[in-house]
């Protein structure tokens, strides 16, 4: 029994010393290499486990879709023949759009390359902090890449990549208290800093102390954000915190648009796609076009135009002269 105690003490000393060393020097090269090595050994368990689980879970759905696909195939073949004309038109419009953009000296949208990934692992103890996805260095994911998630037909801000391994990556969620993103409120031009609180809600600080704030406002990423593309929905204002007379700013509580517990697929906006990967379409936030007539005269009409590529708060006021041959109804 004494021999066992002695061995146990030695093993405890060695393992505890190693653990404390890992905890104390998280950024040193040996510790990072050790972490990468452990990840390399153990990540395939979850990676292949998730792939296997999906294969089994999706089997009935796959069989149903296979039968459906056969029926749709004939239908789509016929539509494809008709679609040739549409494709030609779109290509012509795309070229025209690019030419007009150049003529107007307008900047093209960010050319980040999106990659979809599955949520592979999440730890209930750190529910609002981080999760692991099944895309890593092999798919061109890099440190700091912004991560978006689908919600009600649009993409919303989720977090950023903080650790990249060969086949997997760790995503730090916006709700983590170490996360922050520059953002603005949709009701005005107020900018602030959205920060995580290790809970279901976010907090937006540094809002102008004199401004009137109201619950229900949408919060979008700011063009000044170092991580996220501009105008990506972060969430909605849930509560305006009471003003603190000792602070020079106001703050609000935000319900994040991305629900950490229901995320299944995420989009990573990579700086560059790996060579050989087909080029995906450029990501542009989808905002329905709005055209509001504001004044009409016999020969000209002023309209407020908001297009799908325009910023939601930056509606371009444009006076468009519509000439009519007869000077009557346009």
């Amino acid at each position, binding site marked *: 029994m004494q021999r066992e105690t002695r061995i146990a003490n030695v093993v405890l000393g060695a393992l505890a010393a190693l653990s404390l060393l890992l905890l104390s020097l998280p950024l040193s090269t040996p510790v990072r290499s050790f972490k990468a090595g452990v990840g390399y050994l153990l990540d395939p368990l979850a990676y292949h486990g998730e792939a296997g689980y999906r294969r089994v879970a999706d089997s009935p759905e796959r069989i149903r879709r296979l039968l459906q696909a056969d029926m749709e195939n004939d239908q789509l073949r016929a539509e494809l023949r008709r679609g040739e004309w549409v494709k030609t038109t779109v290509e012509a419009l795309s070229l025209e759009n690019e030419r007009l953009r150049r003529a107007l000296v307008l900047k093209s949208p960010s050319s980040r390359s999106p990659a979809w990934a599955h949520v592979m692992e999440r730890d209930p103890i*750190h529910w609002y902090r*981080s999760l692991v996805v099944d895309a890593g260095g092999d798919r061109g994911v890099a440190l700091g890449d912004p991560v978006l998630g689908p919600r009600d037909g649009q993409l919303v801000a989720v977090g950023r990549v903080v650790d990249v391994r060969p086949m997997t990556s760790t995503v730090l969620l916006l709700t983590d208290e170490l996360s922050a993103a520059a953002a603005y409120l949709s009701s005005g031009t107020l900018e602030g800093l959205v920060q995580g609180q290790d809970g279901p809600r976010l907090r937006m600080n540094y809002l102008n102390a004199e401004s009137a704030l109201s619950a229900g406002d949408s919060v979008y990423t700011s063009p000044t954000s170092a991580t996220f593309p501009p105008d990506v929905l972060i969430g909605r204002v849930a509560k305006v915190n009471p003003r603190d007379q000792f602070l020079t700013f106001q703050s609000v509580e935000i319900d994040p648009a991305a629900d950490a517990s229901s995320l299944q697929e995420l989009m990573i906006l990579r700086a560059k796609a790996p060579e050989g990967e087909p080029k995906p379409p450029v990501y542009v936030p989808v905002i329905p076009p709005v055209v509001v007539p504001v004044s009409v005269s016999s020969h000209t009409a002023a309209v407020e135009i908001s297009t799908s590529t325009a910023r939601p708060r930056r509606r371009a006021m444009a006076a468009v002269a519509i000439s009519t041959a007869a000077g009557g109804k346009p």
Partner: protein
Amino acid sequence: MIGFARGLALFFGAMFLQWWWNTHFAYWGAAPQFLLALTILIAARRGPVLGMLAGFGWGLYLDVARAELFGASALILTLAAYVAGVVRRQIDLRAMGPLAATTFLFTWAGFLAQGLLGLTFTKSFESPGWMSLLLTPFLNALVVTAASVIWDPRGDR
């Protein structure tokens, strides 16, 4: 040889089970900590050395998935195995009741240790949340009881 293969299967099987449950069955942020429960069970049945080695390996697996505090779970599971190995001389951890009660208490101790390590190394007390704090100890006690029944169905513990 068969014992080694069985141990290896248990080691990887437990990690797979933890990942599978966490990812697909964790509701309201609460899920049983299979790896903690099994670490305690191994330490109680096979001694603290084997428990610490398994706990350290499982802890590293838990730590790899996290953004910060790499090494915290490894340290906590190693300590849990050591304490369970020491305690088994005073308490009969072969019986289900004491084993479940020890696991229950170790779960809270683990949460506290996690928070204190966070406070020490990242200046932030990592709270597991009320739901985990209240539900997880019961789930862990249930898991360790079930695992001890499966461990040796003939009663030769």
